[in-house]
């Protein structure tokens, strides 16, 4: 295994007294592509917030880049590119594509510094790598769901991150676009050597693409190569009767009716 870049050690997280993730011990190595799966309310988004340094552990520890997460400096945070869940964004916000991607530079720049031509070049380059550079002047609200996801991935890339953290990047977009967004993520992982953590409820969509799967339901149930994690006995323990296994060995987890729009 390469250098661990993220290390959870018996870490417990929560908010206002409620435990969302309990006793997590997990190493993520540099350059890995990890899929994080689990039912609704299993603590997947909490895992993202913890890695972003927005939530220190109640107990145990979390180290990112060898830096304890409660003392994560702004400088370090900028090295984690983050794509938040889509419904947390206002579609009518008056902002152009380039203005959106430039925001990826703001944390890196720090207070008082104006973005320079170089920052603009970095932003345009990030747009090129998601093939959205022709749309740099377009209003964000005019783009399709898949195009918006590409722009937000470009914003994360503009931070020139080491880690890319994606929270449900395929929710709410059509199936063809879902595949093209995941193809893009896979390409970025390969070409840029990024460490990728992708949170999703759609196991079938990512099982062929990731190095490792992490299965959460408040606790860490399994972590390993997809074929080791996607075993009926393990999945049944987490998903219960929401799990259906068809004869083609496809796994369909049916507790997301209210999640699809």
């Amino acid at each position, binding site marked *: 295994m390469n250098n661990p870049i993220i290390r959870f050690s018996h870490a417990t997280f929560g908010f206002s007294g409620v435990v969302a993730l309990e006793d997590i011990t997990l190493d993520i190595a540099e350059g890995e592509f990890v899929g994080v799966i689990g039912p609704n309310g299993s603590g997947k988004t909490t895992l993202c917030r913890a890695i*972003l340094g927005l939530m220190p552990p109640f107990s145990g520890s979390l180290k990112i880049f060898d830096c304890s997460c409660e003392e994560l400096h702004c400088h370090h945070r900028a090295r984690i590119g983050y794509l938040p869940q889509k419904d947390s964004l206002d579609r009518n*916000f008056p902002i152009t594509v380039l203005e*959106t991607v430039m925001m990826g530079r*703001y944390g890196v720049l720090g207070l008082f510094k*104006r973005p320079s031509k170089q920052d603009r070049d970095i932003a345009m380059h990030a747009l090129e790598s998601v093939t959205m550079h022709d749309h740099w002047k377009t209003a964000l*609200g005019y783009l399709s769901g898949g195009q918006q996801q590409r722009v937000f991935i470009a914003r994360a890339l503009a931070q020139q991150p080491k880690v890319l953290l994606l929270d449900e990047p395929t929710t709410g977009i059509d199936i063809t676009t879902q595949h093209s967004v995941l193809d893009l993520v896979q390409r970025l992982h390969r070409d840029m050597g990024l460490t990728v953590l992708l949170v999703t409820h759609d196991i079938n969509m990512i099982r062929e693409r990731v190095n490792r799967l992490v299965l959460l339901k408040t606790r860490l149930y399994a972590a390993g190569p997809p074929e080791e994690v996607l075993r009926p006995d393990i999945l049944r323990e987490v998903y219960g009767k929401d799990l259906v296994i068809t004869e083609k060995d496809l796994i369909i987890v049916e507790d997301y009716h209210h999640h699809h729009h």
Partner: protein
Amino acid sequence: MIELLSYDFMQRSLAAAMLVGAVCSAIGVFVVLRGLAFVGAGTAHAAFAGVALAYLMGWPPLAVAIVFGLATVWVTGLMEEQGRMKLDVSTGILYTATMALAILFIGMMKSYNAEVYGYLFGSVLSVSAEELQIILGLGLSVIALLLLFSKELYFIAFDQEMAEASGVPARRIFYLLLTLVAVTVVVSLKTVGAILVFAMVLIPASTAYQLTHSLAQMTTLSVIIGTSCAAGGVLISSAWDLPSGPAIVLLATAVFFLSVLFSPKRLRRSPA
């Protein structure tokens, strides 16, 4: 109208109104985008309670107004942060409580005080040279701070958690914004008054919102609209001898409805 401009008081009131128009419409962009409209309206009433207390006790009105305004925004900010209460609920409570305080203070005064009511409705034509200096000092500081922290302010308006996650000190920037809202309200009390100040914050920014899809353009447009409506309103009010606050606000409202009619976004309002 040209002769009017040669009077000292007229030049002063035009300068005061345009400055207030610029400050309000600049901060308005962030207030509208971050969803702080009601917080601002509540702050204006709290500041008025401060003015009433100042007159009751013989203290300097603007100073007490600033203290009341800041206390209100910080308390609302804290409440939201701790997730105890939604912003509109805590603001609603503070809004009415401070208005009750204002009425209480006015009731405790021995005699009717017309000057206090001046702060409620504003009267730009009676701005003194001293007051203009205070407005100028505070107003320019607000604009300077907005410029200095513009990229962080845009970021938290778009997505505060995202800003925090990418290394921007989002919490502190949010409190800076709340603080600037309170100062802006106090700067505008004398010219447009506590009841109308929030129109000056909301209308130019919302008008600009109708017309553009770029943050930079929205800000520029908002300031142009705010400043020219303020100037236009003062000229109208002196030409026809109308109260200045309502003249400014109604002119801006008219421009807003025109922008809604001609908004390029209107055709694209289909749900996503």
